[in-house]
């Protein structure tokens, strides 16, 4: 199993590193966009997939990263500085949004987060002096490290890839710690979790804050990719798009966001050949996918892994245990 996984990662790395060298403009853009969406999907998967906290505010947090970069970089702040500011703001507001999550659940929480998204959108649209209002901000520069500029599409792709690797690694680190298990316990049985000592307050706040922080990273990388942002990029539609990615990919599974981001971003593009019909086919695909794979595309992934390794897959296998004592030893 280990062998296959390492092989898979190596192959993936090769594809991600070398493929862009042969891609031209639009396809390169799509690849970059998919990576950005992957980062956002990973964030939402943490909040919703692992911790079970529904959030329709993800696009709002994304906007913090995007606007931070768009506003600060022209003022002379290095890109990474703008990104950090955006992420910190997203993290803090994520904490704020976590508080209602302590009081309400499920559809109520959906509404509160939806409300937050709308509020952010309205503020972005009306605070013209800061955000340019409906006109947005254009000419967003890409990062540079002194003489090294990530201006070209290809160079910027690699920059985004670098951040993606950081996000994936950090998310893996967090989710495979006791925090990850605590998040899952909240999703699976919140009451029982509290009774075994899980501080719902701490973990729910963290779930929101960290998920939002990742959204901030994604937003910051998004802005220079399009070089132009306006409030319309951060509406409810966008939050729903991420929701789709996470659910269709596979909630609460580490592979989920990868599958979801790829499918939701690239499937419509693949279907573009059918011209006007592509959205119809895509929406049909969404419905069919939910009917036949309600747990997400990970179902196919699991099936493939099973076939390849002829072993049963458990979501988070504990390490192989040593031989236990034959008699119970007290306490």
């Amino acid at each position: 199993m280990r062998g296959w996984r390492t092989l898979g990662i190596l192959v993936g790395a090769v594809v991600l590193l070398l493929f862009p060298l042969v891609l031209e403009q639009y396809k390169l853009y799509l690849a970059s966009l998919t990576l950005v969406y992957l980062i956002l999907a990973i964030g939402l998967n943490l909040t919703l997939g692992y911790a079970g906290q529904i959030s329709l505010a993800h696009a709002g947090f994304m906007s913090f990263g995007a606007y931070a970069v768009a506003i600060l970089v022209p003022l002379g702040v290095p890109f990474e500085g703008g990104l950090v500011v955006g992420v910190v703001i997203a993290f803090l507001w994520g904490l704020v949004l976590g508080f209602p999550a302590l009081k309400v659940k499920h559809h109520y929480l959906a509404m509160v987060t939806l409300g937050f998204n709308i509020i952010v959108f309205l503020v972005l649209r009306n605070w013209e002096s800061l955000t340019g209002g409906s006109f947005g901000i254009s000419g967003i520069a890409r990062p540079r490290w002194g003489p090294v500029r990530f201006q070209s599409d290809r160079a910027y792709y690699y920059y985004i890839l670098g951040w993606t690797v950081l996000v994936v690694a950090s998310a893996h680190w967090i989710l495979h710690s006791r925090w990850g298990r605590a998040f899952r316990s909240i999703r699976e049985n919140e009451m029982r979790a509290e009774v075994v000592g899980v501080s719902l307050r701490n973990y729910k706040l963290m779930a929101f804050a960290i998920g939002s922080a990742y959204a901030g990273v994604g937003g910051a990388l998004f802005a220079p990719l399009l070089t132009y942002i306006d409030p319309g990029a951060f509406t409810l539609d966008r939050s729903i798009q991420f929701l789709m990615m996470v659910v269709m990919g596979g909630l609460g599974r580490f592979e989920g966001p990868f599958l979801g981001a790829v499918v939701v971003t690239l499937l419509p593009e693949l279907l573009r050949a059918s011209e006007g019909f592509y959205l119809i086919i895509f929406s049909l695909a969404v419905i069919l996918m939910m009917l036949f794979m309600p747990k997400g595309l990970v179902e196919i992934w699991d099936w493939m892994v099973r076939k390849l390794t002829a072993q049963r897959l458990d979501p988070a296998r504990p390490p192989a245990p040593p031989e236990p004592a034959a008699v119970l030893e007290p306490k």
Partner: protein
Amino acid sequence: MSFMEIRQLSKNFYHLSALSLVSLSVEPGELLGLIGPNGSGKTTLFNCVTGVLRPSGGQVRFKGEDITKLSADAVYHRGISRTFQLIQLFPEMTVLENLLMAAQERQGTLLSRLLRRDETAEMDRALKLVDYLGLFGVKDNLAANLSYGQQKLLDFGMALMPNPQLILLDEPMAGVNPTMIKALVTHIQDLNAQGYTFVVIEHNMEVVMSLCRRIVVLSQGEKIAEGTPAEIHDNPAVMDAYFGT
């Protein structure tokens, strides 16, 4: 000083009085039985003690500390663990993960739980428990895929994992076959002999009478009797509560 003291505990749901001025105490090392007909408030009592419900009145003291208003996770940190009448597990986690989950929040800070990766001590304990409870064969199965009896054992195991001082068992024998009942009774007696304190809600009179040295009887939210099994057995009020007029 009693290990745990419940003073005049009351709980109302809108106009329904589920618990009314119930007082009882638990001595260290005891095996206390809590019985009463359905709806008498036994589980509500457990819920109030463990912070799942907020009492409407009264006080709960544990080792001298007032724990009445504490949240469930804070109560857990004080050393009280419990099982549930309707089994509450983490269905998509394996048996071992469920047990690890029962232990992980007991120690350390929030941050240390992120940074510290070593779980050998907890895993050792979990494996020993799994062995003790006879669950070794299913240790990597998802909790949702276990049989009812196995789930009950897992629930029991989770209550033992954090090395608690007081264990509240809510109908541990419900729906369990006679062989398993014997096994559970033996486990409880073993552990009690080692110093764990138990309060057990049960409907199975045989079990209660043989297991517990002292019994409290609730009926319609009030305590109506308290004493040894023999005393309870002969108490007409208890008969009345169960079979009623």
